[in-house]
């Protein structure tokens, strides 16, 4: 395999994770080959030719083929940190965690045996139950490991059912967690909660649902990120090759505002095929968050949305085929509903009206990367000015109501479109002691303004 220089560690990590620790990898002396002038490419090719030939002809150490190791995870080891006093011992722990990349950079709550024991009361699953395998390094997510990272994030035991569902969704093949974690594209999982659990856990669904201030929103998102760091073991510049990163990597959780959803509009969980009586979480490989405003110079309320839809691909048309999420604020949704729209009709309208000219896909024929991204060949045959829908179908548009009743500022969130990641929804299953767990949250609430 040939690689650009910055990706060498990433390639070795991927090869080992795929069961090929001996794969011969040659790193070119440039950071990228795309866009390089011919004289540089010629020089690099000549420099690396001998190493490439050696890779095909010289002997390797040789590994013995073997079956996968049985999935029998051991209980978590105890790690000890000392200091002259408790604060100093915590500092020693923090410094160790930071230097070993076990931290998100924020102060950590120590995951003592007692704290993890309390956290485990949030589920009736056994502590060694395997919830999923977390890419890219295939860390085994047992209930115990989820609980440890939840303690570190400052989560409460009642959040465990949500966290377990999040890990189930992230590790579902439909989410392509490997791609999301390792890509150079600026992707980060976004969590969306729908259902009665929002009220039970004091999850902010109103003003600034996507922001800080609530123990639940902040620590569930944070716990997810710590799980991705410590179980998935994706590290910036090593095997997570995002150039700039994404603020959503801090862990964003948005909740549906069901109370202020227009009458007759189905909730997100119903749109996803789940019962209205239960609760769900969805994970989405978010990339960019763009504002959609109700107040615009356009005469019709919905035109701002159509215009924003058209921008989804202007940066990179090769991402065609992705899903798009709209989070409409209550006042924006109300205006759409008053104009006669339903969820289905707004999705159809977005599909029909949110179009981009064929010419933004580039010259004919479509390049290999375009084909790889799933852009169908029929787009090649269209005239340059033909309006191509931004998404393959109206069903690729997800929308729900979130946030408080303000001036109408809503979000269009586009998706990392280079892999195979899809919007993935799981039911949140509650343990028998659920009401007891919810009662334990008294005192941990922040008021939620609903107007």
């Amino acid at each position, binding site marked *: *395999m*040939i*690689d*650009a220089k910055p*990706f060498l560690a*990433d390639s070795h990590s991927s090869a080992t*994770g795929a*069961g*090929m*620790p*001996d794969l*011969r*990898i040659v790193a070119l002396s440039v950071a*990228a*080959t*795309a866009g390089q002038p011919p004289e540089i490419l010629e020089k*690099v*090719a000549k420099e690396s030719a001998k190493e490439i030939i050696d890779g*095909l*002809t010289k*002997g390797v150490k*040789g*590994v*013995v*083929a073997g079956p*996968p*190791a049985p*999935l029998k995870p051991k209980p*978590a*080891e*105890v790690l*000890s*940190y*000392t*200091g002259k*006093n408790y604060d100093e*011992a915590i500092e*020693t*722990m923090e410094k160790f965690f930071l230097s070993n990349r*076990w931290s998100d950079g924020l102060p950590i709550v*120590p*995951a*003592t*045996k007692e704290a993890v024991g309390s956290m485990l009361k949030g589920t009736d699953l056994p502590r060694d139950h395997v919830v999923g395998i977390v890419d890219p*390094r*295939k*860390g*085994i*997510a047992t209930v115990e*490991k989820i609980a*440890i990272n939840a303690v570190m994030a400052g989560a409460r035991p009642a959040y465990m059912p949500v966290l377990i569902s999040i890990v189930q969704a992230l590790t579902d093949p439909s989410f*392509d967690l490997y791609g999301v974690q390792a890509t150079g594209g600026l992707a980060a999982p976004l969590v969306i909660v729908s259902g009665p659990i929002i009220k039970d856990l004091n999850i902010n669904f109103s003003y600034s649902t996507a922001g800080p201030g609530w123990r639940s929103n902040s620590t569930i998102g944070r716990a997810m990120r710590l799980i991705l760091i410590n*179980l*998935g*073991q994706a590290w910036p510049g090593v095997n997570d090759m995002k150039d700039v990163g994404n603020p959503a990597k801090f862990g964003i959780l948005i909740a549906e505002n069901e109370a202020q959803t227009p009458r007759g509009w189905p909730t997100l969980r119903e749109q996803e095929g789940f019962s209205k009586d239960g609760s769900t979480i969805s994970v989405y490989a978010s990339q960019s968050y763009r504002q959609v405003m109700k107040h615009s110079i356009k005469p019709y309320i919905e035109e701002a949305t159509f215009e924003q839809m058209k921008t989804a691909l202007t940066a990179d048309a090769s991402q065609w085929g992705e899903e798009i999420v709209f989070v409409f604020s209550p006042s924006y949704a109300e205006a759409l509903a008053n104009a006669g729209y339903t969820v289905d009709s707004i999705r159809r309208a977005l599909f029909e009206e949110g179009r981009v000219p064929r010419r933004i896909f580039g010259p004919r024929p479509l*390049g*290999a990367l375009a*084909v*790889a991204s799933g852009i169908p060949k029929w787009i090649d045959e269209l005239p340059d000015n033909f309006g191509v829908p931004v998404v393959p179908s109206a069903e690729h548009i997800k929308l729900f109501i979130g946030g408080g009743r303000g001036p109408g500022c809503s979000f269009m969130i586009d998706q990392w479109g280079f*892999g195979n990641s899809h919007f993935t929804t799981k039911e949140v299953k509650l343990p028998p002691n659920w009401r007891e767990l919810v009662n334990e949250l008294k005192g941990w609430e922040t008021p939620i303004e609903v107007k």
Partner: protein
Amino acid sequence: MKTRGNLSLILIVLTIFCALYTELVNAQVTLNVLDPRGELFTPPVMPTTARLDTLAGKKIGILNNTKPGADAFQPYLEKALKEMVPTIEFKTWVIPYNAYPDKEKDLKALAEWSNGVIGLLGD
């Protein structure tokens, strides 16, 4: 005698005091936490295939994974290798990096045709 006895007592008290003070100064608190990292699932290990004795006269399959750098670099790679080993034969398979699970037939064809394979490009 009395003075010597008093001195001894003072010495003993001082020694005990110093020992206690040293213990107080060096007291340590130990914080025990559980390891947050997951054990890693080990997939089946596949050994690397045997190396070729020479590339002369060999068929080298190029697996172009459609990342942007692959198309850019491939012509220069083939030219550089041909300059060193003129009798290499190249054939290219363009298989998108995110389509491998669905492209088993193409990957098998690549493996069957080739004596050796070069993968382009890991980004």
